[in-house]
């Protein structure tokens, strides 16, 4: 159990970059994915569903621990090219904006995922979350 204080709605600062998370698309992590989706087995190709895994992993690393019970409300994925198996990626997490609507607290996080080797942007995403009260 983490001793860190909860990362609540009040902690989000629009425009702030929270850090970068490294993620290697190795065979072990792909095998883990296939425990859920065994049909995602194109040789050499990272299953596209794993894009969400990369984004969520980065956001949950930097905006954590969260109050329990938040809900993912929406997501965009802007793919420049699919990551390759064996590739290491760096995903930056930034607070895009936040808003209270009908007493619900919404936050949008912008993620930018680059190839560690080349710096090429392979994916950007916007994760919209309903933060638990």
């Amino acid at each position: 159990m983490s001793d860190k204080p909860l990362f609540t709605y009040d902690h989000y600062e629009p425009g702030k970059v929270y850090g970068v998370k490294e993620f290697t698309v190795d065979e072990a992590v792909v095998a883990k994915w296939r425990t859920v989706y065994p049909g995602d087995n194109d040789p050499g190709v990272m299953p596209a569903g794993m894009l969400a895994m990369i984004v969520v992993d980065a956001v949950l690393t930097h905006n954590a621990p969260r109050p329990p019970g938040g809900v993912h409300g929406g997501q965009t994925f802007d793919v420049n090219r699919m990551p390759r198996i064996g590739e290491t990626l760096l995903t930056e997490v930034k607070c895009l904006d936040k808003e209270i609507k009908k007493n619900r607290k919404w936050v949008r996080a912008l993620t930018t995922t680059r190839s560690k080797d080349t710096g090429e942007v392979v994916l950007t995403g916007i994760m919209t979350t309903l933060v638990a009260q």
Partner: protein
Amino acid sequence: METTLKPSSKHVDFQSILNYADVTNDYNPVHVDKEFASKSPMGGVIAHGTMSVALIWQALKNSLGVQALDRVHLDIRFVRPVRIDDTVTGGGKLQEGSSNIFDVWVKNQNDQDVILGTATLRACHPT
């Protein structure tokens, strides 16, 4: 080009939700703790939203080919939770009058939308 995406389906049981939590390190109790979830506004365990997004990616890949995924902008909203023992199906259809924008969705076994959105295929990169 295909105008209707080949659907892709998955039965979601509690074990697959736990496996997905393990894959993503997302152990939000609304997904993995039946007691917590029952007392939450969700009224019970819900699957991770992104778990079902994979079905849209599969429908796109199975219909348009894996290379088409290199130039997709996917924009989705989670409009209804996926519950234990739901069977969900991802699919899509080319918007009328468009050559590159698909309406995409995931529906449950009752034909209710759980995810709605669009997938836009950008032009091929010049080589």
